[in-house]
């Protein structure tokens, strides 16, 4: 019977593939990096670039001889930006290759889920530019590293930028700022700080949620047309960003009064709108599109030139590609730092890498030497500060490419720190976590 044959062949194939599958990548001296990506689904255009940058950097490190001789092995797992698939990927990869080094889920929803799991499995979680804002407090969130910036940093800088454009913080009084956000934990993160800042400076915050995936925004922009906010903050991801820009064009809302977060400021967001997005600004997580930087040249020479590049060559150096690349770099540098303490040329465990990430100290000289000159500023973490740096620039789309249009901003610690302490304290109470004391930090 045909069906039987079919089933039998399939079973035989599955079995043989199991038997011949290479033994888990557990060769000695390999530092295993799990790579959670989304190359399919509604957010694929953005996720793919990030993933390409991430993987290319790992390949670059290997091409340069590994981390003090320790080669990197990695495996991708597709999450499609879904929390349950992300958790499955985490469980699948955490034990592979002698134990996962660090997870970077690139999804705030998955980050929330993994925040509960990481302390049990003792694997650090880097969420560069996303995740829980209060996880900056390393005393409570021992395993989370929202390196380079959180959404609270983003919201604070956005308000600073608006104040500067208006000619001073005093001019914010009576202004209306609308937040058009992705209706998920990601989009909701900036709300508390915006409301707090609104109270301090006397501006009005309007909240306009957009449902996943964000292609339906007619009603939102109708509201904007009616209420005429002075500025629109765009907290979108994927197709939601380009849709918002198109709607802004259709309703005639001036694009130069729209400011996106760093996840709403990359090529896929504006490319299709091109001229229509001219004048639209977005925050940057320090870096913008950096096709001229040395690290990008290295990637092209040492990885892409040998035919090992992960994505299209012309996307190397674009904004989200750089984000992925820098995220990978932070993970790798965490391992390098850990090796300084626990033995150079050895494979580090998740726990050791956590120490490395917590004592990360990338000064400008190191960064320049690695090829990040002009791309980013120094990062220094500590036990209490898992963010390490809160520098932000603003770049503007000129119709064909992103250009920096502002100086460096830094988030106002006086605003953010109390909120972080309050929120993380609440979390610690709920979860009955005892915050680490400075003595415990030294261990």
């Amino acid at each position, binding site marked *: 019977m045909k069906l039987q044959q079919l089933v039998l062949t399939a079973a035989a194939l*599955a079995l043989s593939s*199991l038997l*011949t599958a290479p033994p888990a990548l557990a060769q000695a001296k390999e530092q295993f990096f799990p790579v959670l990506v989304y190359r399919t689904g509604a957010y694929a255009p953005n996720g*793919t670039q990030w993933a390409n940058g991430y993987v290319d950097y790992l390949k670059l490190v290997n091409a340069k001889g590994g981390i003090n001789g320790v080669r990197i092995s990695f495996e991708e797992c597709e999450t499609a930006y879904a929390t349950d698939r992300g958790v499955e990927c985490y469980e699948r990869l955490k034990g592979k290759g002698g134990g996962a080094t660090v997870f970077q889920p690139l999804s705030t929803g998955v980050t929330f889920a993994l925040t509960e799991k990481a302390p049990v499995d003792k694997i650090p979680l880097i969420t560069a530019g996303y995740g829980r804002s209060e996880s900056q407090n390393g005393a409570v969130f021992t395993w989370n590293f929202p390196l380079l910036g959180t959404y609270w940093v983003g919201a604070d800088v956005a308000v600073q930028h608006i104040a500067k454009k208006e000619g001073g913080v005093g001019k914010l009084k009576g202004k209306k700022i609308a937040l058009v956000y992705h209706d998920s934990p990601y989009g909701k993160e900036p709300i508390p700080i915006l409301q707090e800042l609104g109270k301090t400076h006397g501006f009005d915050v309007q909240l306009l949620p957009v449902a996943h995936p964000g292609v339906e925004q007619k009603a939102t922009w109708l509201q904007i047309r009616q209420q005429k906010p002075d500025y629109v903050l765009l907290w979108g991801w994927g197709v939601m960003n380009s849709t918002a820009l198109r709607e802004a064009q259709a309703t005639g809302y001036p694009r130069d009064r729209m400011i996106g977060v760093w996840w709403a400021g990359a090529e896929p967001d504006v490319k299709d709108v091109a001229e229509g997005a001219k004048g639209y600004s977005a925050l940057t997580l320090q870096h913008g599109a950096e096709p001229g930087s040395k690290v990008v040249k290295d990637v092209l020479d040492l990885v892409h030139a040998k035919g090992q590049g992960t994505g299209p060559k012309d996307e190397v150096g674009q904004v989200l590609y750089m984000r992925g690349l820098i995220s990978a770099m932070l993970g790798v540098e965490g391992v390098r730092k850990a090796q300084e303490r626990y033995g150079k040329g050895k494979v580090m465990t998740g726990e050791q890498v956590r120490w490395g990430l917590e004592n990360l100290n990338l000064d400008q000289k190191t960064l320049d030497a690695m090829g990040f000159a002009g791309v980013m500023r120094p990062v220094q973490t500590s036990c209490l500060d898992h963010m390490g740096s809160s520098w932000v620039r603003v770049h503007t789309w000129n119709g064909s490419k992103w250009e920096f249009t502002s100086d460096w901003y830094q988030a106002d610690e006086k605003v953010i720190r109390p909120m972080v302490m309050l929120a993380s304290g609440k979390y610690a109470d709920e979860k009955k976590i005892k915050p680490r004391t400075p003595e415990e930090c030294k261990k």
Partner: protein
Amino acid sequence: MLYRENGQFRTSYAADQQIFPIAQDRWAILAIVVFAFVGVPLLVDEYLFRAILIPFLILSLAAIGVNILVGYCGQITLGAGAFMAVGAYAAYNFHIRLDGLPLLVSFLLGGCTAAAVGIFFGIPSLRVRGLYLAVATLAAQFFTDWVFLRVPWFTNNASSGSVSVANLQILSWQIETPTDKYLLCLTILVVFALLAKNMTRCAIGRQWMAIRDMDVAAEVIGIRPLFAKLSAFAVSSFFVGTAGALWGFVHLASWEPAAFSVDRSFQLLFMVIIGGLGSIMGSFFGAAFIVILPIMLNQFLPAIGRVFGISISTAGVSHAELIIFGVLIIFFLIKEPHGIARMWSTGKEKLRLWPFPH
């Protein structure tokens, strides 16, 4: 040869009407349950527990709930994800707001809340039928999505709208390891499955089935549609709500409304359609098919590719997974429109005659 009932004489009504009248069935099921409780925890690693077995058990429970409503009572629902969400959020609120409330009680109260909401959204079923009812239940989905996103009270004013739970404990049993979680889900599932099976065999289940087969005729012979339909909604939502609480508390530990989106409703409906409408066993088959198969495909495809010396990209695997999954669904529905459960019983019929089929 081995599987036949010759010589098994049933001399009492009780023996004739038991769930598994054939001794081999009884022993096989008992062996499976014992193995699930004792053998599996000894054999299985953490990944299988966390990524496959626990979601499978929880979604089986939800599928049983949906099957009661769709398969036994014939009321198509697209609101299963909503009732899961209600169960999860209700259990969460009971858990954090009433200090010292036992965990199981929170789960059951979550289920009860879901049942109440289920009854409310079941009211349209008294007037509309079939696809129109499906659309009406879809309202439940959008309503709960909206409520849990917009009303901060339900999420304990969490700034991001995501809630989380930790330190699960039943009496002095700390539920921490995957094995603990698995055993908790398994125990609840076994109890609930037995309950569901018996419910469908007694008066209320017969009422549901009468309504499903022809509601006018059922009404003529004295079955109250109001009671039958709403009780099906209540029981179904109770099961689904409890499953939702388990999904949130035990599987995810931290969740947002997106975890119970309309996709989840579709997933559950597909489970019962593929598994077999009107069959408790079918719910398990359907859940296994929908939960396990995509993950298996996702892992085996690269391995199969390697056999032939092809390396498939991550995106390629994902696309292939969806394609093969879709093809399999169509294949099963053409080959056996009554679901995998019917295949199973046909298989058993054939086994009785084996090796001398006539």
